[in-house]
């Protein structure tokens, strides 16, 4: 609604301009935003409440993914019970780092998508590949409209006997590999995951895969100041999606006693 009556059109003034020749583009204020609230519509320019790394690997029976339960507000550990692994349909899990409100929005559009597919009842179901492709298009179009969804996402799944694991981020960039990590994990955990998994994707058991992820999460908790020692693991196999309850990492900090500048020493 344009609240400026002067923008509604020029009242006729027969003495001054009887044939209405006054050019439209010179009418007062027509170059201003039509909506007084237009300047109030803003795009995300930085993430606010953020999640940190998500890790994922392929193993013998499918895909396993891990993320901690923290949503930070800057350096403040603001929300400590946030689930960053989200099941999408029967075959897929979505793990998110980055802005948590954008992630919630993505959850809602994906849930809507799944409901639409269910309602179609055409015998087709969306697998991880389709979900990932859809997300990539959404993320790319949002960035092209200069209004990105500020996340890095991992999509993992298992359908028709095939594992699927891929990445997509706020720019619409996509890639796939047998080990993936977002955020700080891409620097700290990815090399560890590669060393443990590459070439052994078809040998690793679920227990081994869980151990690899747990060890990597522990290293991240030691090194990443925006991480938490509570985390969840999602497993996607032929049996479907399973996401654990929140679990706590076993950590040891006694070594800090002996390090100058780390513990209680003053000199």
């Amino acid at each position, binding site marked *: 609604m344009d609240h400026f009556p002067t923008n509604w059109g020029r009242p006729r003034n027969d003495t001054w301009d009887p044939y209405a020749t006054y050019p439209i583009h010179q009418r*007062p204020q027509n170059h201003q935003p039509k909506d007084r609230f237009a300047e109030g519509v803003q795009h995300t*320019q930085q993430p606010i409440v953020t999640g940190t790394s998500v890790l994922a690997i392929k193993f013998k029976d499918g895909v396993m993914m891990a993320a901690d339960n923290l949503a930070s507000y800057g350096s403040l550990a603001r929300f400590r019970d946030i689930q960053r692994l989200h099941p999408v349909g029967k075959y897929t899990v979505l793990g998110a780092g980055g802005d948590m409100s954008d992630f919630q929005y993505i959850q809602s559009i994906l849930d809507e998508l799944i409901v639409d597919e269910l309602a179609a009842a055409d015998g087709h179901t969306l697998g991880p590949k389709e979900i990932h492709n859809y997300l990539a298009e959404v993320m790319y179009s949002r960035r092209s409209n200069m209004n990105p969804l500020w996340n890095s996402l991992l999509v993992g799944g298992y359908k028709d006997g095939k594992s699927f694991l891929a990445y997509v981020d706020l*720019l619409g*960039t*996509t890639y796939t590999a047998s080990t993936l990590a977002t955020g700080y994990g891409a620097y700290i955990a990815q090399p560890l995951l590669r060393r443990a998994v590459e070439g052994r994707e078809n040998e690793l058991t679920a227990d081994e895969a869980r151990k690899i992820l747990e060890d990597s999460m522990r290293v991240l908790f030691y090194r990443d100041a925006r991480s938490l020692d509570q985390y969840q693991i999602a497993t996607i196999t032929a049996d479907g999606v399973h996401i654990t309850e929140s679990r706590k990492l076993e950590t040891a900090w006694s070594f800090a006693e002996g390090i100058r500048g780390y513990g209680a020493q003053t000199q």
Partner: protein
Amino acid sequence: MAAYFQAPTAYSRTALPPLAAVSAPQHLVPPSDTSGTIMAITGVGFTVIAGDARRGDAFGAYPQVRFVPTVFRLTDKAVLATNGFASDGNIFIKKVRQRLDWYRHAHAKDMSLHAIALLIQSMLYQRRFCPFYVHNILGGIEDDGSGAVYSFDEVGSYVRETCRAAGSASTMLQPFLDSQIYPKSSQPPTPGSATHLSLARVLALVMDSYKHAADRLSHDQIGDGLEVYIVLSKGTSTQGLNIEGVSEVTSIPGGERIFLLRRSLA
């Protein structure tokens, strides 16, 4: 009423900031160069199109992932290599492939190479004011059986050439290719086929170029894997292709043939 008919500049009932100040910053999400190098060379009856598989991250500091193809087979006689901003590249490839599918459904044949080049030009120029940040190199075999390389800039300007390198190592590789491929007397270089080079020699040039560029460039710029597509015109012999890592990816027998060579650039 008097104020109403004054010139717009004098009309200041409200004190709104100028439009530029209230609109969102225009470079909110700048495209990022995800590095990598592509190149293509054409000889008599063949064209070689290559690209490395390392993907840099948005900051150009760290290899993000170690195997992402940058060279794509479009038809049995056309291969497109992309370089620049990875997500623009992916979407662009997707769009080109869709247009080629539509063409195939409408005309029951594959689009010819020069037509694909023209299509790519118009697709790129359509986005003149919000460009795809990708360099494209199209290589393949023309209807007359000659090999061709077309190189494009981001907004669609294109030219048929004999050889072209683009991407992170292009400033190193292009002069080298020029020196090896264009006749010494040709100044400036003229397009056409490199008649004096065999397929084996061209493949060796490509693989050596990548190997040495990978040695010289910083680690995030180039590396990991090398993918080389080789397109042969109808009836061209496969001499020079009996090397390790080559597999045939032709879809329709009896016409042009396409081979894929994969190498490690560790």
